[in-house]
């Protein structure tokens, strides 16, 4: 077994568990019925401890053990989960996460991490005081043949021995066992049980009637003690009751065991609470009872073990809990299969090739005019389309996980800023391509931090403006015509336009006295080198500003809109494509080259002639609506003359429409987006490439960028210079 691989799995699992723990912790304060969250947290820490134990990661085990103990007290309602404890547990969560990270890096413990553990442990100790461990319920000592030695629940093992009648005949001396036990530890108490001793003539001197109850103070484990009776076990009854402290150890041990499929008895055996012999015996009893009754169900194995005093009830309870947990988890695993991301990527790549090959086969079938072939390829293409959709859906993940992380960030950041902020999350089940989600989390983080830092006002200002004390921040995700929209809205102060203008002039982004529309002003915050924070705070204003956010979103072929009302709040809208992999394309031709437009952005196609409104201003009149247009031939500086009959493709992105003038319309087809690479990053208006059925490469047009170009008064071809204004939405 490759231990490293297993360790990776552990790390992965631990991360997931920690995420679950964090989520539970953050949800707990609002949770009306926090029981399940507390259980979830407990399970998370508990499982981490258990798995860490398997790898001998002692620092993690030590630390998580205490955390677990505290949580267990919370769980059993011995202490309440107040905000201070939540914060402390959050810190513990962070520390555990950092321990896991250093494990991944191959470092078990550094002086800093040790110090961190120690510091947190010290803070945890008060919560443990009094009774840091699980209380065990008083145990009913059932059906004991003799009244001797009831005080089994101390630090000693209690041994209850009933020698079989043939012990003496077999040449065994009962006393020798007692003497031998004396070598394992100290015999604290001993009582003989002689009830079986018959009277007078019934007495057989060769038969052993002796029973012994004794308390043994020893460090030896169950197996060692039981082995003492190796030779008499066959026909004697021997019961071992572990000392009190052992019970906890057993419970802890059972809880720490990895969750896999086991019978209750096996769990107990593995935990060292009973021996295999005990189990066999109990099973025999169970079987015998079943037979006697003639009914299928005898006593349950746990009951038998408890009643036969082999195991104290709390231990069985812990084992049962473990068993149930595995069953729960198994039920969950049936639903979710973990697959490595690169395998998935490979699959999507292959499906991409399949789509291309399918399109090419179809094109050929059309060419040869063979109806049966055409029918066959149509069926194949339909199936390929289904496979494509399925394969792509594999890559789709819900944005909820990303959203949930913001609970923590908002909590921490707002505390740091001394602001009270409530975070609302909507549309967490909206699905997005995994790659997009990953790349989205950084810019989103920045936006949220900005909203808390600059957006939501301080308490005094809020009161003065007559707003509720608690600021509100909401994250919202939803589908909207072929794209996904993510909104970050706050009810803060909105953007201060005067301040933005002043800063923009200071930074040389615009000229003094420039006339700008509101939208143009708000868009200034996306310019490189712009930061609205008057004082550089710890949270934002680190020089990475909204321009980086915009750049990140651009890379995802997305766009940002900003809506801001002074003193009322700001809403930032990120619009993203559904997927980055495969699109339905619409092919257009210019000269000899052909280009592809994403079909879901195409509204309609028309002839330029009848709709031309103004050649000079590049405007068309679409049934009363005046739209800007641009000629791709001009944009791309293509040589040659345009045909007499030019076509317009009307495209829409977000709220904006524009016309793209091309030479030919070539119809729709399915296409796989291939990255064009950094070399071609500078080319405005081209977003990617695709492979046509013929194997030829076609470029995919970047519609949002083209719309932007069309909307600008002077369509510059260079990348946006610093003084250049962002688009106005017409």
């Amino acid at each position, binding site marked *: 077994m490759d231990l490293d691989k297993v360790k990776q799995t552990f790390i992965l699992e631990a991360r997931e568990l920690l995420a679950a723990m964090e989520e539970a912790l953050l949800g707990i304060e609002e949770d009306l019925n926090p029981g399940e969250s507390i259980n979830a947290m407990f399970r998370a820490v508990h499982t981490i401890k258990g798995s860490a134990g398997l790898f001998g990661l002692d620092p993690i085990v030590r630390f998580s053990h205490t955390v677990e103990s505290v949580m267990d007290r919370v769980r059993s309602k011995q202490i309440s989960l107040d905000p201070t404890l939540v914060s402390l547990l959050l810190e513990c969560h962070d520390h555990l996460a950092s321990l896991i990270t250093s494990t991944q890096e191959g470092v078990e413990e550094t002086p800093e991490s040790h110090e961190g553990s120690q510091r947190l442990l010290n803070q945890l100790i008060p919560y443990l005081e009094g009774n840091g461990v699980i209380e065990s319920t008083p145990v009913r000592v059932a059906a004991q043949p003799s009244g001797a030695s009831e005080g089994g629940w101390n630090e000693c093992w209690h041994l209850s021995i009933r020698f079989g009648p043939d012990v003496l005949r077999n040449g065994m001396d009962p006393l020798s066992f007692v003497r031998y036990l004396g070598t394992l530890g100290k015999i604290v108490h001993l009582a003989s049980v002689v009830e079986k001793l018959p009277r007078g003539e019934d007495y057989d001197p060769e038969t052993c009637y002796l029973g012994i109850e004794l308390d043994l103070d020893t460090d030896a484990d169950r197996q060692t003690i039981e082995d003492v009776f190796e030779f008499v076990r066959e026909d004697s009854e021997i019961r071992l009751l572990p000392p009190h402290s052992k019970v906890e150890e057993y419970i802890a041990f059972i809880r720490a065991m990895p969750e896999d499929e086991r019978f209750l008895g096996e769990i107990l055996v593995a935990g060292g609470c009973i021996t295999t012999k005990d189990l066999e015996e109990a099973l025999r009893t169970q079987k015998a009872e079943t037979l006697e009754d003639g009914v299928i169900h005898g006593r349950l194995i746990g009951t038998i073990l408890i009643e036969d005093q082999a195991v104290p009830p709390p231990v069985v309870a812990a084992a049962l809990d473990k068993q149930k947990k595995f069953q729960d988890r198994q039920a969950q695993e049936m639903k979710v299969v973990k697959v490595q991301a690169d395998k998935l990527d490979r699959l999507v790549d292959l499906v991409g090739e399949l789509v291309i090959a399918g399109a090419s086969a179809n094109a050929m079938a059309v060419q040869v005019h063979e109806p049966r072939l055409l029918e066959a390829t149509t069926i194949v293409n339909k199936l390929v389309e289904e496979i494509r959709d399925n394969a792509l859906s594999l890559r789709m993940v819900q944005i909820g996980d990303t959203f949930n992380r913001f609970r923590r960030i908002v909590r921490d950041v707002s505390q740091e800023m001394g602001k009270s902020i409530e975070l609302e999350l909507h549309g967490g089940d909206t699905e997005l391509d995994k790659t997009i989600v990953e790349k989205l989390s950084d810019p989103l983080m920045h936006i949220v931090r900005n909203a808390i830092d600059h957006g939501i006002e301080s308490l005094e200002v809020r009161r003065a403006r007559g707003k509720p004390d608690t600021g509100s921040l909401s994250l919202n995700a939803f589908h909207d015509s072929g794209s996904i929209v993510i909104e970050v809205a706050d009810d803060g102060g909105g953007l201060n336009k005067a301040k933005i203008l002043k800063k923009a002039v200071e930074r040389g982004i615009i000229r003094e006295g420039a006339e700008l529309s509101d939208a143009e002003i708000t868009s200034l915050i996306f310019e490189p080198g712009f930061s609205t924070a008057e004082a550089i705070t710890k949270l934002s204003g680190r020089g990475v500003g909204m321009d980086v956010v915009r750049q990140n979103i651009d*890379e995802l072929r997305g766009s940002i809109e900003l809506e801001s009302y002074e003193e009322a709040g700001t809403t930032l809208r990120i619009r993203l494509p559904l997927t980055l992999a495969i699109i339905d394309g619409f092919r257009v031709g210019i000269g000899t080259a052909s280009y592809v437009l994403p079909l879901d952005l195409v509204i309609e196609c028309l002839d330029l002639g009848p709709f031309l409104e103004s050649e000079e201003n590049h405007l068309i009149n679409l049934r009363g609506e005046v739209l800007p247009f641009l000629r791709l031939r001009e944009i791309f500086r293509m040589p040659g003359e345009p045909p007499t009959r030019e076509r317009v493709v009307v495209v829409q992105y977000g709220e904006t429409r524009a016309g793209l003038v091309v030479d030919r319309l070539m119809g729709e087809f399915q296409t796989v987006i*291939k990255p064009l690479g950094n*070399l071609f990053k500078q080319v405005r208006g081209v977003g990617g490439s695709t492979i046509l059925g013929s194997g030829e490469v*076609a470029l995919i047009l970047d519609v949002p960028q083209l719309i932007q170009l069309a909307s600008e008064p002077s369509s510059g071809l260079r990348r946006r210079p610093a003084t250049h204004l962002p688009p106005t939405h017409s």
Partner: protein
Amino acid sequence: MADPKKNGTRHHRIAASAEPKQQYLAFGLGGESFAMEISYVKEVIHYGELTEVPLMPPFIRGVISLRGAMVPVIDLSVRFGRALTEIARRSCVVILEVPRGEGLVVVGVIVEKVSEVLELAASDIEPPPAFGGDLRSEFLNGVGKVGGGFVILLDVRHVLSMEEISALPGDRDAEAAPK
């Protein structure tokens, strides 16, 4: 291989000098003979359909699809400040893997024809001439003596990793992004 005598001589030469030899791929461009270290060469394909990318400097002829991956194609002749390479029957695209940062960038270059694989020892290579010729000296590794003639040894790293094309595709980011 066809000529056992020649083959024999070569072996003899290696044994005699015991000098390590490097392999070079020789190709023709604008009537001249060039060669580059074979370790950079991934494969040679026939010139096929190439898609031009608008607004790019002329030495970037466009992109081709190499089994589904996009590969930019560079016209070496234009890169050297000469005329556009004419596409003819024997035109080929040499696919190269050029180290960049920690990874490799796949790039194609158009050549008129691919001639042979040369084995050159260090003693067969002269330093690049300080003057003469229109090629920038940093593009050259030296001049190899082959039989009676010369072949210009290109410094692939320099030819293909100048500032203008420093942003060649191939960063992890760029490749991972739009999938």
